[in-house]
Every structure is written in C-alpha cells, then in structure tokens.
C-alpha cells in the first residue's frame, strides 16, 4: 500500500502533487471548522464584530459597484432591444440578469477581493508576529476565536449584501430607463417583478451562502497557515483573492447546472 502510494506520487508532476496536497489541506481546514468551530462555547461578541467588519464596511463599495452595474447594463442593452422593438422588456431582462447572475457573482468577486485579502493579510500578519501563538498560550482557542467567527460572518453576511446589491443595481437600472423614457417608478418595479419567479431568486440566494463560505474559508486558510516572514503575509492575501475568485466562478458553474437540473431554466 505504502509502496503503491509512493509510486503514484513519483508519477505525478510536482505541481499536481502540490495542488492535490493543498486541496487536501483546505478540505481538512474546512472539516475542522464544522467539527470545532460550530460547537460551544460560541464566540458571539467576536462573531458580531466580524459581521460588522465584513458586512457594514463592504456596503459602500458593493453599493456603488451595483449601482453602476445596473446603470451600465441597462444603457448597453437598450440599443439591441430597440432594434427588435422590445424596449419594454428592458426592466425585466435587466432584473433577471442582475438577480440570477450579475448581482451574486459581481458582489462575491468584490468581497473576494476586499474581504478575502483583508482576512488573509490580518491572520497572516497575526501568525507571523506570533499573535496566534500568544492567543493559544493564553488558553484561548485561536481557531474558534479567529477562524470560525470570520468564516461564519462572511457566509451569513454575503447573501444580505447581494440582496442589497440587487436592489441598488435595479435602482441604477431604473435611472437609466428614466433618462430615455417616461417610465414611472411603480411601473418599472411592476415590470421587474412581472418576469421574476421563485426559481430566479431562491437559487441565487442559496449559492451566495456557498460563495461566502468559500471566500471566508480560503481567506482564513491562507492567513492561518502563512509561514514566517513578512513576504508570506502579502502572498497569503494575494493567493486568498485569486483562489477565492476562481472558486466563485467554479461554484457558480456548479450552481447553474444544479438549478438547471431541478428547475429547467
């Protein structure tokens, strides 16, 4: 058995071995979160502090991006729809696009950049300067206090951010529609909700929990396992963003396939 695994490891290229090793480590880290992090005693105060840091402090960036996204999407889509005489479909088309895909994915990518890098750098810096060791020596479980609270906070606040981003994006779309036509605010919202169904909203909210979990997990893993040296702090932040962003796309692809399988989009 041992001989076989050795032979396999020799046959595999080094980069693939490293990738598989890293994947295994991240999985183990995630399992530790479910095993240790979700059991009492709970770090309630730190959890709410992280929710504030992750959610409230990301709101301006997410809001501005969503507003511009709604505005630009509407302005760009109008000429094509006008060509077919389907301008009246603009609000519903933009609404479906934002709620199904653009809102969750763009918000998740912004959060991967902002929150993933900040968690990776913060925990990486704590690791390098022995703050995590100091916490452990003082009799506090640093995994529970630092990691579990952050992963849980990102997982639970990202869907809320996405809902807000969707609303702000649609408001941006309304302003773009209003520039060229005399559509009233109630009429716009009426057209938006006319085409939106349960299968548009629910799967997109559910996938946001997975996006949030991936961003929190990767940010924490990269920071918590940073090696000694200041260089590793930058590397932890950078790789947290890159891997979390990639995971968002992969999870989105899986989510679309599952949604299509169950609801026939």
């Amino acid at each position, binding site marked *: 058995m041992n001989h076989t695994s050795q032979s396999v490891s020799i046959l595999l290229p080094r980069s693939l071995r490293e990738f598989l090793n890293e994947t295994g480590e991240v999985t183990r880290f995630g399992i530790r979160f479910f095993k240790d992090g979700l059991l009492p005693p709970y770090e309630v105060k730190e959890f709410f502090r992280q929710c504030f840091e992750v959610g409230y402090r990301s709101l301006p960036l997410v809001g501005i991006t969503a507003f511009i996204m709604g505005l630009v999407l509407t302005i760009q889509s109008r000429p094509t729809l006008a060509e077919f005489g389907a301008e009246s479909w603009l609000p519903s088309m933009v609404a479906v696009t934002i709620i199904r895909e653009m809102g969750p994915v763009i918000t998740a990518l912004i959060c991967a950049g902002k929150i993933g890098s900040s968690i990776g750098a913060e925990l990486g810096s704590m690791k390098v*300067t022995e*703050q995590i060791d100091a916490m452990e020596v003082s009799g*506090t479980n640093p995994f529970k206090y630092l990691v579990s609270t952050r992963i849980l906070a990102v997982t639970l606040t990202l869907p809320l951010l996405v809902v807000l981003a969707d609303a702000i994006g649609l408001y941006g779309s309304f302003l773009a529609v209003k520039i060229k036509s005399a559509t009233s605010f109630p009429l716009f919202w009426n057209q938006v909700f006319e085409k939106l169904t349960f299968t548009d909203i629910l799967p997109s909210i559910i996938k946001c929990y997975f996006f949030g979990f991936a961003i929190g997990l990767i940010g924490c893993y990269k920071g918590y396992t940073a090696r000694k040296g200041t260089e590793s702090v930058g590397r932890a932040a950078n790789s947290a963003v890159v891997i979390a962003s990639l995971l968002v796309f992969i999870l989105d692809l899986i989510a679309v396939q599952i949604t299509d399988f169950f609801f026939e989009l």
Partner: protein
Amino acid sequence: MGASSENTAQKSPLPSKDKSLVEINGLRKSFGSNHVLRGFNLQLGENESIAVLGQSGSGKSILIKCIVGLVKPDNGELKVFGKNINDLNQRELDRMRMEVGFLFQSNALYDSMTVRHNLEFPLRRHHLSKTQLEIDSTVEEALDDVGLLHAIDLMPSELSGGMRKRVSLARTLITRPRVMLYDEPTTGLDPITAREINALMIKVQRKYNTSSIIISHDLASIRMTAQRIIMLIDGINYAEGNYEQLEHHSDPRVSAFFE
C-alpha cells in the same frame, strides 16, 4: 559528549524533585532530518531562574514552546506542575497555560486592540475578574508595575520597542503565572532599555514569586537575571553552572560564548 558533569558539584543546589515546577527528561524533537533536541533535561524549582544559552537555531525557542504545548515533542518526558503535558486534554492544557506566562520575542501584542484591551483579553477569556471595576484595577496595577499606566489607551503601533516589551510583560503577568518563560526578552533593544527590562524581570520574580526560564543570547541579561545557566549545544545539556563557572569553563565550545 557533554561537559555537564564537570560542574555538577559546584552548581547551586537543585530543588528536590517533588518541588519541581517544570521537569524535562530526555526531550527529543526533530524537524525532518534536523534533530534539534536530542535528549534535553531540565528541572526548574520554585523561585528559581534558569537561563538556556545556545547558538541560533539550537532549539532554545522550540524547548519553551514544548513546555506550553505549542510544539509537540517527539519523545521524552515533560512535566509541568507534576503533570505530563502529553496526558493533558485541551481543557487541562488551557488551565495549565494560565499558570505559565510566555513572553514572546516579537511581543505578540494584538495589533487591533489598545493596550487596555490587550491586558483585559486574558482576564475576560477566563473570567478571572468578575466586574468591570475589578478588571480595570487589575489592568491598571499590571501597567503600573511596568511603569506604563499612561499608555493604557494607546495602540501597540504607537509604542516604542521597549514599551511594547513592557506591555507584553504586563499582559503575561496579569494572570499571575507561577512560571515565566522568556523568549529572547532583550533582543533588539538598546542597552539602557534592555537593563530596564532585566530589572523588571527581577522585580516581578520577587513580587509574584515566579520561577523563570530565560532564553537569551544577551550575556549581560543572563548574568543579571539567571541563577543557573544551561548550555544547549548539539541538542543536549552540554554544560551547566552559574555565570562565573561557565565563563572560565575548560571546554572551548562553552567558554567561546563568554568571550
């Protein structure tokens, strides 16, 4: 092999075995092919202060990290307050850690908290003080001990190296540990600040009756603070004795440290 036997007769008397706060026998630790500790022994008695001296990378920091359970030894016996570290569950280990203070080389102050919150952290975590009034007075007393009461609401980034070290010492002492582990307490400090830290270490040892293990390269600091010195060379207790004994040791590998 080692030169420890040469000094055994001249050493300051060791505490009796049952009074040992920390007892290490045959401790071994390797990182791959790098055998850092190859059977290290140590006994720390009450009110005793031992310095461990050795080259960089000789395993001094690993040794004290083993004592608080941050690093798991490969082999050997490691008892703290008479209990084998390997037999302790997480709760028992945390309880033991409350009685062992660890002063990190990098100070390890929590960047995101003020000095006050840094000191409050261990008290709140373990409910050592019941009311806010008790917490405030304990924090103020600890800061007063290190002469930094005026810095209570500053952030660690606003402190100088010496001040950070003193705050770190205050945070370590706030739980009233019986044993203090100092990892390079004066490294990177100017001679005057280093002397202040040394004086502070002696002061807290007398005031709170703590025993200490000091990891250091700073001979002046060791001379001032340690009653006994263990030379850690090749992963073993290569030589033991007080400062004067080791300074005039016949083995050049030992005396070279004091030149």
